[in-house]
């Protein structure tokens, strides 16, 4: 009963000085806005990232050569790793950007040279036709598997099996087309051509293998497979700083750690502005207490308990900061649904995208923050008000 009355009084006090109340709230509004927008964008990017990662095989292991080249890998050595220990398949990868031609159409795209098994390791689906075979690689057969973007650009259609394309002066027959994957992190996954590794080495005039992929026999053997590859690489290079072996699982973990660090950091930065807003509330509440000393005296004279006065001022602070929090949330919804969708694409670069998520946890957290800040920063002024002696307060002019 008394609480309802206290809320009514708080609204009355806030409404009686609208400009000041708004300026006080502004700190909280900005705090909540920056908190929800910053954390929302980090969470949005994370979602895009994990969506694109989820179709990767957790068994996959990536090996990269690092720093100065002290040793070279050969395709045969990588092939020999197959079946060793817990290692299942292996495939080297070299790639470069080249122009592909078909009739009068040309298209610049990523050309990748690899061996059979690469599609299984990377989880690439063939929509039609087939992937590379061992004999394609051995015999340097001029075959290619293309992504849908390449098919669209060169032929204007996707029924391209048996067609011929020309890359760097050599004719390749298309034997397969990849299933459409869409884009991940703003990069199209459908704009590439795969050709036999042996042909790629010749075409790219590059015999150095800087990376290869492998997978483990089962998901539980990933660590053992990583160890086998590491032992092989150490023997090969003689220096553990010259290579890096990483499982997909480890990559995911690293990313998750990075993302949560980012969320924490942005949340922390935004909380600073919330804190500043809270100090603003305390400041105004202290002014308000001394301005209303006489009112407090009168209330006490007619029978208000210390708790009544305390409650009145705390509720006023909480209502102020909660209103600020709600307005801040409203504005962040405006950012999410109106501002972000209307950012001109030219500002974000090719394939760029900005996603913001307003999750339930961020929503409740920012509202809880507002209430907690109101309580924390309202308590001291309220305590001060409640401790005033009725006669002193009555005498105050």
């Amino acid at each position, binding site marked *: 009963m008394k609480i309802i009355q206290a809320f009514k009084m708080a609204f009355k006090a806030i409404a009686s000085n609208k400009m000041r109340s708004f300026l006080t709230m502004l700190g909280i509004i900005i705090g909540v806005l920056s908190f929800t927008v910053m954390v929302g964008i980090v969470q949005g990017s994370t979602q895009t990232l994990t969506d694109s990662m989820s179709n990767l095989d957790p068994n996959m292991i990536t090996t990269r050569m690092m720093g100065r080249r002290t040793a070279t890998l050969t395709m045969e050595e990588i092939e020999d790793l197959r079946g060793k220990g817990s290692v299942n398949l292996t495939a080297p990868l070299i790639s470069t950007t080249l122009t592909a031609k078909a009739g009068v159409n040309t298209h610049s795209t990523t050309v990748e040279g690899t061996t059979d098994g690469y599609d299984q390791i990377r989880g690439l689906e063939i929509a039609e036709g087939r992937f590379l075979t061992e004999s394609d690689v051995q015999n340097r057969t001029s075959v290619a598997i293309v992504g849908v973007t390449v098919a669209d650009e060169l032929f204007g259609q996707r029924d391209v099996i048996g067609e011929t394309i020309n890359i760097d002066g050599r004719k390749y027959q298309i034997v397969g087309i990849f299933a459409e994957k869409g884009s991940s992190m703003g990069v199209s996954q459908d704009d590439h051509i795969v050709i036999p590794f042996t042909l790629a080495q010749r075409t790219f005039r590059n015999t150095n293998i800087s990376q290869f992929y492998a997978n483990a026999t089962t998901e539980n053997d990933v660590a053992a497979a990583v160890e086998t590859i590491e032992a092989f690489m150490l023997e090969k290079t003689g220096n553990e700083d010259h290579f890096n072996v990483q499982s997909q699982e480890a990559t995911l973990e690293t990313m998750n750690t990075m993302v949560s660090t980012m969320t924490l950091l942005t949340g922390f930065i935004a909380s600073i502005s919330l804190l500043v807003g809270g100090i603003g509330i305390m400041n105004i509440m202290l002014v308000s207490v001394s301005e209303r000393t006489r009112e407090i005296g009168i209330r006490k004279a007619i*029978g208000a308990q210390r708790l009544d006065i305390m409650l009145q001022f705390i509720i006023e602070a909480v209502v102020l900061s909660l209103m600020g929090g709600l307005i801040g949330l409203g504005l962040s919804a405006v950012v999410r649904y109106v501002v972000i969708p209307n950012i001109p694409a030219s500002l974000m670069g090719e394939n760029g995208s900005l996603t913001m998520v307003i999750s339930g946890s961020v929503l409740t957290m920012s509202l809880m923050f507002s209430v907690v800040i109101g309580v924390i920063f309202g308590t001291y002024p309220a305590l001060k008000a409640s401790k005033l002696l009725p006669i002193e307060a*009555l005498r105050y002019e």
Partner: protein
Amino acid sequence: MIELKQISKRYQMGGDIIHALDHVDLTVQDREFVAIIGPSGSGKSTLMNIVGCLDYADEGEYFLDGEDVSELSSRELARIRNKKIGFVFQQFNLLGKLTAYENVELPLIYQGISMSERRELTEQALERVGLKDRMKHKPKELSGGQQQRVAIARALSTRPTLILADEPTGNLDSKSGYDIMQMLHELHQQGNSIMLITHDEKVSMEAQRRLAIYDGKVFPVEADLPEEVLNA
């Protein structure tokens, strides 16, 4: 019933100690109308604060309806102010942001009683002071006399036994002052004890019994007063 026994209150002012109340003995019976007359600085405000449970005495005992008030916590004092005492101040002391109705309702809110009961008591109190038609007005929109009547209604709303009026006519013209005094008489006839504090000889004549206060000491007016009191 009010019983003050050897009540003293001292203030430190600069280097001097001022005896605002000096071993005061005072009894006010139920349904009695007492006026305390004294010049400013005589200690009459201190007396009113102590009787009104707004302040503690340094020494002595104060029994209000048999209850030893000097032993009570500030929480219990607030309860007594709320239930047993109605204040009427010289400066009205209404809350400017609240309407007449809300001002009168305030002590009832602090009692924690239900809304419908509050409405009934508030409207009754406003009706008694003849301002029911003005209850939506804020103090600024009322004349001085009307404001003081709202203050009286606020003092009445909780149905206290004791009305403490501190210079209730001090800020009013003589016509409004007269109306207020009539109202106090009415309350007295309806069974309230009234303690009127004033510096005005004429106003004090309205009471059944008159007491003078000077330099922190209380005398019956019928007795021989010191020269200074009579000339004050």
